[in-house]
């Protein structure tokens, strides 16, 4: 919690803004390594539904998850604008498939509101807040929670103490 508070305490937040099921989301730029185009993903059997598989990122094997499936949103077609955002969460490098990456934005801290209990079917636990910028609504995601909550029950018999 303290981390979140500290982040909110700074004057501006820099966000990578992306589209997912016709909504606009944002994550802190500090946790983003790079953004790559879609490539062939090797399916890994017996992993949770939202784990798409693994890719080869310059010699490293990186797991890729589908954020739509993660949030149980309507599954969108993979298009030319689909991207994989490579993020770092607690020292783990993970790819997230999104519909499109639109821009990098600076958001003043005071324009960030705490999240409502439920938004577009996404549990507030996954959210850091809502940023309102020029009439635009950007949903800020809490990466730690997205990648690790529920995992214990879904990835059966797997110990993931990292969360």
């Amino acid at each position, binding site marked *: 919690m303290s981390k979140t508070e500290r982040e909110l305490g700074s004057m501006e937040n820099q966000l990578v803004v992306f589209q997912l099921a016709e909504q606009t989301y944002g994550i802190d730029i500090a946790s983003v390594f790079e953004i790559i185009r879609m490539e062939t993903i090797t399916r*890994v*059997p017996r*992993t949770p539904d939202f784990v798409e*598989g693994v890719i080869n990122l*310059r*010699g490293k094997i990186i*797991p890729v998850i589908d954020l739509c499936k993660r949030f149980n949103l309507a599954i969108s077609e993979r298009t030319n604008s689909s991207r994989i955002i490579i993020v770092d969460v607690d020292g783990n490098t993970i790819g997230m498939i999104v519909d499109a990456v639109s821009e990098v934005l600076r958001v003043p801290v005071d324009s960030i509101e705490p999240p409502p209990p439920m938004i577009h079917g996404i549990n507030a636990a996954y959210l850091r807040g809502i940023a309102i910028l020029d009439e635009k609504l950007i949903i800020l995601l809490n990466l730690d929670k997205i990648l690790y909550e529920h995992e214990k029950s879904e990835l059966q018999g797997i110990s993931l103490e*990292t969360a």
Partner: protein
Amino acid sequence: MFSDDEIAVFLDELEEKIQCINDNILILEKEGGSREALQEIFRAAHTIKGSSGVMGYEKMSSLTHEMENLLDLMRKGLLPVSGAVVDTLFMALDTLHKLRDEITGKDVSIDIGDVVASLKKCQEETPGRPADREPAPEQELPAPPGGEGTALIGDVEEEVIRDAELKGYQAYWIDIKLDPGCMMKSVRAFLIFETLQQVGEVIKSEPPAEEIQDGRFEEGFKVILLTAEDPDRVKNLLMTVSEVAGVDVKQIVLGNGFEERPAKEEQAGPVPEKKAAQSARVEHPEIKTSQTVRVDVQRLDTLMNLVGELVIDRTRLNRFAEIFEGRFGADSGEMVDTLNEISGHLGQVTGDLQEQIMKARMLPVAQVFNRFPRMVRDLAQKMGKEINFIVEGHETELDRNVIEIIGDPLIHLIRNAVDHGIEKPEAREKLKKPRVGTLKLKASYMENHIIITVQDDGRGIDPGLLRQKAVEKGLLEREAAERMPDREALNLIFMPGFSTAAEVSDLSGRGVGMDVVRSQIEQINGMVDVVSTVGTGTTFTIKLPLTLAIIRALMVEIGREQFAFPLTNVVETISVPAGEVKKVRHSEVILVRGRILPLVRLAEIFGNEEKSEKERLFVVVLGVGEKKIGVIVDKLLGELEIVIKSLGEYLGKVPCISGATILGDGQVALIIDVRSLVKEIGVEETVYAAC
């Protein structure tokens, strides 16, 4: 006060010296008073004494001091090598080990009182023990004059030297060269000074003493020493300091420049100025110390990853060349050829690079083997057995990860061989066998594997007794047991739950935790096999992959995906007509040479979409220990050398998948974990019974 790096270097050296002492005490015990062995031990102890003293580890330094005193007596022939002395030396060595652990924080407050006392006691038993160090040998006549200038000898020094000469001292101009790879110049310099102070007085040095002791000098330094000692002795003393590459002692004769008094041997090692890489120690010029640098394994891993990226780029370049050719065709002419040539060469270089980096990760098995002679000696002594322990293939190299794991199983096997395999001397004589049992540990290469054998000429294992035991324990039906060939029956000792030490050693004399041995070896993709003849002995053969990072794998296609089966687990591949598949209790099986083989469709286990039935099925027969299963695949793609990569922490352990590898075209293929797959299928014993 000392940096972590310096302490690490000290510990490395300590390890090396302890091993050296260990080896040489064993030689001493075997061959009696081997002068060379004594000399080696003395040197090693001296080095430890010096460096531990400088680093402030007083207990270690006083222990080695006592060892040194004792060894000195032995060296001079005043004290014969006896069992008691060797035992005391071993005891001191063990204490050194503990003291090392104390430094690394693994152990606390070691008491060295007892050991020091016994070391002293040994010394007191010396018949003609001299009161102190023997007096320096008489001065020899000066040799012909030498060359270089005496510029450094100023008026003050000259006066001091003249004074000293009156008192019977000689002045020597000593040129000391350190090993160019020396990591702790200041420590070495300190040691050298200390050594010199013991025999005389340093009146001048270049560069000045303060700078030397701070390590601010290039490869070496020069000092003027006043001493009554013989120059040879001074030289030899200095040579005992580690990483001293060369010492040149010249007598200074005032007024005449100085006269050269070369010590008997010429500068023994290669002249250090020539090449920085020459790090051969002068202590034993005939033995070439390997010229090495220490590298963090992490770095090698990173290098390996970088090579992987290169490989992928090369493939992309290939593809680009094709596209290029297709688009510009005739117009491009030589350009396409050039492009192909570049990409071909790049591929070759990348391949070589990969191989070299793999080799860099290898260590000689000596790392593990070295501790066994001592262990066998102690065990044999305790059990009242006489054993000639032979070790071969020290230099065989293995991946460091394999080295780390292989130690335990080997200890088990060797212990068993000494404990239960080899009989007592009296029993052996009755059996008309040589009184001394032979235990042989050997490592060698075989194709892409390392073979380690542990062979004894003891009583052997009786397969009949093993069968009986297995039936008694309910592990096997009587009928199945009886039908089992001897060779397979021997492998029963590896079955979990088969043996506990007490029960089995009464019976066959084997089987202490053999299932653990096997699982440890399989953990590193190895295999273990046993051959035994009652009355003549037992041989365990361990087959290990050269490395854990790269394996040979059978590539297959299932659906549109590629999978890799580690070749160590692949028994064979067969093609069978679909009609031969039979159903036994909901599971599919086929008959292979009269034996039932359970079948698995990977597609089902992994939840792939079902494939249409074909007329002929490709079956990969996999084996883990005794268990065999067949996996139906769509296509066999052939063998490939693959680099194993982890799926990462996020996915954790995925059932039946042990990792992934990156193929030539950059795609990822999963590696099947055959052990967990076989476990999952759960080949029941009933299948065996049905055979």
